[in-house]
């Protein structure tokens, strides 16, 4: 089962946790100054080690756009990876929740993604792959600057730990901007659903570390974990503080959203994201009792355009057909959960 199909810790608020390392081979220029032959060499060398250790290759020069975007929706690759012009490949070990992008911004971007809040486990998972590669390759490293990366903002640990959070109450209370400013002071940052530059849909945000030099991996994880726990506590308090007329209005809204998701004949992805967020809040607050949070998390991936297209038979050919398929999938998933 993939990460988005199993329950996780604090799943009423935390969707997923990711830890990724950027690494480069010391003898090759970084990707922007690398030629196709060099990129292929890296993919062959590093890929072989990964294939010998349970990873499966997806060659991005040989993949349909829909299949590539589906991998973005599953958070196995970045949106930038799909646009990359050099030869590039993904190595995936889905049962272990591990993925490695070769020749993205850096030669190697490896990550572990887990459901719910699981920073330590995600770190351990990522470390296993990192050690495997460290044993076999000369990684670009400097005693003072740490791991050398294409972009100087990743120097040092070259580790990005991120937690995807569902923060409807914090957003509705108008506290996101203040939270973002506070996180910034702590060397952390908030981004939208698909990382840098993306907007926040369905009250979903990624909180991650920004600073990577002069800090340890463990220290970074500790700080992020502390902050995430504070964000969770605040979100829960805000949810609990809704009462009286406000609670009636909210209850009406989430039940209407549930009704629409359970009975709609066609759903656009924007409408789905909006309504699924309302229903998730309703489930978390105990207003809706017959829907499981994990079903909503799975839908966050499976109802997205590319993944939906990949998983539907016969393949939907138009946006309209996709909206019908989405509504059918949502109906099945939500009514199938006692």
């Amino acid at each position, binding site marked *: 089962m993939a990460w988005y199909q199993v329950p996780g810790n604090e799943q009423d608020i935390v969707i997923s946790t990711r830890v990724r390392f950027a690494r480069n081979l010391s003898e090759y220029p*970084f990707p922007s100054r690398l030629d196709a032959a060099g990129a292929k060499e890296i993919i062959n060398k590093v890929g072989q080690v990964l294939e010998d250790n349970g990873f499966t290759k997806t060659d991005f020069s040989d993949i349909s756009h829909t299949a590539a975007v589906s991998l973005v929706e599953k958070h196995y690759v970045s949106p930038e990876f799909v646009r990359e012009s050099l030869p590039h490949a993904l190595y995936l070990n889905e049962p272990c929740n591990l993925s490695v992008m070769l020749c993205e911004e850096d030669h190697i971007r490896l990550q572990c993604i887990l459901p719910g809040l699981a920073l330590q486990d995600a770190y351990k998972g990522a470390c296993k792959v990192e050690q495997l590669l460290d044993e076999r390759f*000369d*990684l670009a*490293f400097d005693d003072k600057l740490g791991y050398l990366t294409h972009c100087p*903002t990743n120097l040092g640990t070259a580790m990005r730990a991120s937690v995807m959070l569902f923060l409807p109450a914090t957003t509705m209370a108008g506290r996101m901007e203040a939270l*973002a400013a506070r996180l*910034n002071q702590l060397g952390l940052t908030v981004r939208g659903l698909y990382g840098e530059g993306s907007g926040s849909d369905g009250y979903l945000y990624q909180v991650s570390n920004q*600073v990577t030099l002069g800090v340890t991996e463990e220290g970074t994880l500790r700080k992020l974990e502390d902050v995430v726990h504070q964000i969770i506590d605040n979100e829960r308090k805000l949810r609990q503080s809704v009462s009286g007329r406000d609670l009636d209005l909210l209850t009406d809204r989430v039940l209407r959203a549930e009704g629409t998701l359970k009975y709609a004949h066609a759903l656009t992805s924007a409408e789905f994201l909006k309504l699924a967020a309302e229903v998730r809040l309703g489930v978390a607050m105990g207003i809706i009792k017959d829907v499981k949070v994990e079903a909503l998390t799975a839908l966050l991936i499976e109802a997205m355009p590319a993944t939906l297209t990949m998983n539907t038979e016969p393949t939907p050919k138009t946006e309209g057909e996709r909206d019908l398929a989405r509504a059918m999938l949502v109906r099945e998933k939500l009514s199938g959960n006692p």
Partner: protein
Amino acid sequence: MLCEKCNKKKATVFYNENINGKVRSFNLCADCAKAMRDAGELEDISASFSSFASPFLSLEDSFFNDFFSLPFHTTGGLNAPSAPKKCPLCGATLSDISTTGKVGCAKCYETFADELEGPIQSAHGKTGHIGRIARGHRAKKEKADRISALKKQLKEAINDEKFEEAASLRDQIHALEGNA
């Protein structure tokens, strides 16, 4: 590092110029850099002075808008005729790095160490890696730590007039340094 002009805001612009041997350098916040440029006190630069303050602005964006849009650490200012320094491994120049916002290869960090030092420190707020160490460097670090510990013990042994122990420690240090 605080801006040396206002002493209030964080310095995010590192301006160095060398015109006919006359060297000037400033560590400034974006506002003071803009003010000095507008007043004609700095070389005229068509830079966008974005700020670090926006919480949703990524570090990467602000890093390069702030730093690499300026003629920082150049030798000769804007009128210098000298050939630009190139990385011997990948051929990148400082101008390439400022245009793309990315260094060309691992060697660039050595080649442009002086030029990159300020921006890196400013972006991270800290210097000096203290995290995981790559395999090839681990042994070196362990050896350096071991030598440093032995030297400390040697000093203590000499102070305590334990000369036999001191001799043994010195031999161990020499043996380790000999393998350096």
